[in-house]
């Protein structure tokens, strides 16, 4: 395998053993990006100079004998994490030239762990989308098949990792935006428990749903990244204060005695045959490893998408009110007065999907509708969470598909927002309930990856990572990568 698809462990040994320097490794990725990214469009900003100067500094450390799991590993960050002095666009014209004056906590944590940031990845605008076709900076292509979407909203991160343009990447997940693109691109991506990773510096979409997480080539790699990203942060009141589990040391738990739940109603319809087959194969594989399967019900699960598409836009409508052309970001030319400034800056600065969601969200909160929509959706949310909590009395985690189909074609769902929203049908409930959930490669169909999902109880990221790691010891899906796609 060429180094661009090597695991972090392999690269660690190479760096520590001086087989390669951090600078050489960085140059390798930068050159691949320059050469190959034009056909993927996975990066919005590539930080050549900065990455090389970071690499040089890290090489000094490595030579001095410093050792750390992520020291010198080149990664990319979704362009929704504020990076001090470096353009952070959220995939929007509204922030096309915006340079934050501070780093997000996730960014700072990863920097402290010694990663080399290659650049900022493309995404659906303000994290709203499931295909990365909503970016001001153009659609991202799936390296497995460039007529297909990589998924969204962390489509750029997924494509970059899958295409060997970085070792791993950060993403954010509000309704599935780490997991769904991970499934479409054959990656292992985890959305941790709500509050596990600080949201400071993470441009907000839906405050009660957003979570940051890693997208990587394996559970082992994802564990290393999550360990570095996560942790208490007093700048985020919703951030958990419990210490972070040392995930990378906890992934070798055998599956004997693990009870995994299956929700028959979720497998009944709307699921492509190939994914249903992969699901069965995975189940057999996990049984061989010692897990037992239990059928469970999640009674209110079918309300997930409805509840989500009220709550998320509602919170977004408030979170995006600050983009008004007054203090920073895009401002229309020659505003006639204040109203004009607001209307045109926002109309011109935001893309259609963002405007659509702001309108929906504003409506759901408006006088006369709040009780029927927002309040009701929050009540339903409580019921959905309750189903999971009850289920976790009987099982340790739940196995579901991640997506109803493999990667769909560019342009296939752009005319039908609701069809696009239904892509998130398996992933949304974990966000509503604040539960950790992981997507991992479990098959291929017609040259496109198939991902499956495990959802766990609050703060059981280690259990999820461990289960996937065991699965990845006896399967090969995660080792596959697109070839000759350039």
């Amino acid at each position, binding site marked *: 395998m060429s180094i661009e698809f090597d695991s972090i462990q392999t690269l660690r040994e190479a760096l520590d053993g001086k087989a390669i320097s951090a600078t050489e490794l960085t140059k390798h990725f930068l050159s691949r990006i320059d050469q190959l990214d034009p056909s993927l469009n996975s990066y919005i900003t590539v930080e050549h100079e900065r990455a090389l100067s970071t690499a040089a500094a890290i090489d000094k450390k490595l030579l001095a004998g410093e050792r750390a799991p992520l020291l010198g590993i080149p990664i990319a960050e979704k362009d929704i994490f504020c990076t001090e002095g470096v353009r952070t666009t959220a995939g929007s014209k509204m*922030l096309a030239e915006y340079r*934050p004056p*501070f780093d997000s906590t996730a960014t700072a944590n990863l920097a402290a762990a010694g990663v080399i940031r290659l650049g900022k990845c493309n995404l659906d605008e303000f994290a709203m989308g499931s295909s990365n076709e909503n970016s001001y900076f153009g659609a991202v292509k799936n390296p497995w098949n460039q007529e297909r979407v990589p998924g969204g909203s962390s489509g750029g991160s997924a494509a970059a990792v899958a295409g060997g343009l970085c070792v791993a990447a950060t993403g954010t997940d509000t309704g599935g935006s780490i997991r769904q693109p991970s499934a479409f691109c054959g990656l292992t991506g985890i959305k941790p428990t709500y509050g596990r990773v600080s949201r400071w510096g993470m441009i907000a979409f839906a405050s009660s749903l957003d979570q940051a997480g890693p997208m990587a080539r394996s559970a082992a790699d994802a564990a290393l990244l999550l360990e570095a990203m996560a942790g208490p942060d007093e700048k985020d009141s919703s951030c958990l204060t419990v210490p972070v589990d040392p995930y990378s040391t906890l992934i070798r738990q055998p599956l004997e005695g693990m009870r995994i739940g299956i929700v028959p109603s979720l497998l009944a319809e709307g699921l492509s045959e190939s994914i249903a087959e992969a699901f069965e194969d995975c189940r057999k594989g996990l049984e061989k490893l010692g897990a037992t399967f239990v059928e469970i019900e999640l009674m209110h699960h079918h309300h997930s998408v409805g509840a989500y598409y009220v709550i998320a836009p509602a919170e977004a409508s*408030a979170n995006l009110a*600050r983009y008004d052309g007054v203090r920073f970001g895009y401002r229309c030319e020659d505003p006639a007065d204040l109203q004009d400034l607001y209307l045109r800056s926002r109309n011109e600065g935001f893309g259609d999907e963002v405007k659509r969601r702001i309108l929906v969200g504003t409506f759901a*909160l408006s006088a006369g509708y709040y009780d029927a929509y927002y309040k009701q959706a929050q009540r339903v949310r409580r019921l959905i969470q309750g189903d999971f909590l009850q289920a976790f009395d009987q099982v340790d985690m739940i196995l579901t598909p991640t997506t109803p189909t493999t990667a769909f074609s560019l342009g296939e769902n752009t005319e039908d927002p609701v069809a696009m929203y239904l892509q998130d049908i398996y992933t949304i409930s974990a966000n509503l309930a604040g539960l950790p959930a992981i997507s991992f490669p479990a098959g291929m169909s017609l040259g496109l990856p198939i991902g499956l999902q495990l959802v766990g109880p609050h703060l059981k990221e280690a259990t999820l990572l461990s289960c996937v790691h065991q699965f990845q010891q006896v399967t090969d899906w995660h080792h596959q990568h697109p070839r000759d796609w350039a």
Partner: protein
Amino acid sequence: MMNFPGWQVDIGLEIHAQLNTASKIFSGSATAFGATPNQQASFIDMGLPGVLPVANGAVFEKAVRFGLGIGAKINRVSKFDRKNYFYPDLPKGYQITQMDEPIVLGGQVTIETEAGEKIIRITRAHLEEDAGKSVHDAYDDATAIDLNRAGTPLLEIVSEPDMKSAADAVAYARKIHQLVTYLDVCDGNMAEGSLRFDANISVRRVNEETLGVRSEIKNLNSFRFLEQAIHFEIERQIQTLESGGSLIQDTRLFDPDRKETRQMRSKETSTDYRYFPEPDLLPVELSDAFIDQIQAGMPELPDEKSSRFQSEYHLTEADARLLANDLTLANYFEAVAQGVTDPKTAANWIKGDLIGKLNETETQISSTPVSPKQLVELIGLIEQDVISGKIAKDIFQALWSKEADSPRAYVEEKGLKQVSDAGALEPLIQTLIDANPKQANDLREGKDKLMGFFVGQVMKQTSGQANPQQVNRILRNLLGL
């Protein structure tokens, strides 16, 4: 004083008090007034992408203290909500406030009116963040936004419409001002915008039970403007109705130059704030222990203190009220009263000389150049008959101007000791009597006014240092009175 027979007025006030915490309610920025524009606005205050609010614990204690001070119920669980609207001085496009679960519920204060004492009920008080300032006169063709104020903690105090006149409203406003400064919750500096009033005013016929259509006058920042705005508004509303017109519920601004109110927006176009719970902040649970601790540390309130001054120091009601009105002044008084024999003397000195000088020089009691210790020493010299009251007043001026530091030392230095020695005074007085036989005779015959003549002469000859009681006694003695 306005009089509209057949009509009655209903007024409610919403008072915004800036809490005097060192930092803002959701960020660590300083709250000090007067900084260069936008120098006290952090990333959080500016609402930059990716920022999050973090609640400043100190604000809860202040809000609870206020709530206890008005006898209100304290909500043990406090949550925040977003109030959404667009305005350039509101950086996030929403204000973090408390909508349906305010920290303080109910309560009341008592005001003094011409008709006697009146209770004004308080509906609620809640915590919220202040917006920035729009400055319209800094540039010719643009409005400038200063975000220093954005995020300053506010306690919004909402009253029931229990006030029936501008006088009631001003009395209530003054009472709240006294209370928040007393409780060290707000510095009460209205010139700096620490306390601002919105007045809700409506009128109805005397026998009408339901309240009339109300107008809200926003952002009044002095007692005088409050009074003027209410007067104008009452007149406007009654005149409109009496001439057959109708009123619409609206929001108005007061123009202090024209002394009139102007409509800002009407109910038809009023804003739907789309309140929803703030997802970035956890609900705050206040424990019984927390509340109890604040209760235990509550300062004595003005009315209580005034009563105690009357019973403990035997002051008159008027004097007690005056001294209890301001906490710093009250503490000053007590420090002096406890160091002298007669507290009433302390009261008189403070009421007269000290407050007189403070007013004359527009000095705050907190900056008085004469300390309680110095005043105690001065009064002590009078009580010990070392100096006369008149000389003491001169010494007071010297203390104020810092010419004197210790009254006792100053008396020594300037030789101001009172002459009380009969041996010194008798010959002097006898000489005066002999030199003024007519006056002496008139005095013997009952013209008491002439006492003043002789005492005055003695004072002149002793440079004011003769002990007046002694002079009186000796004079009467020598005249055989």
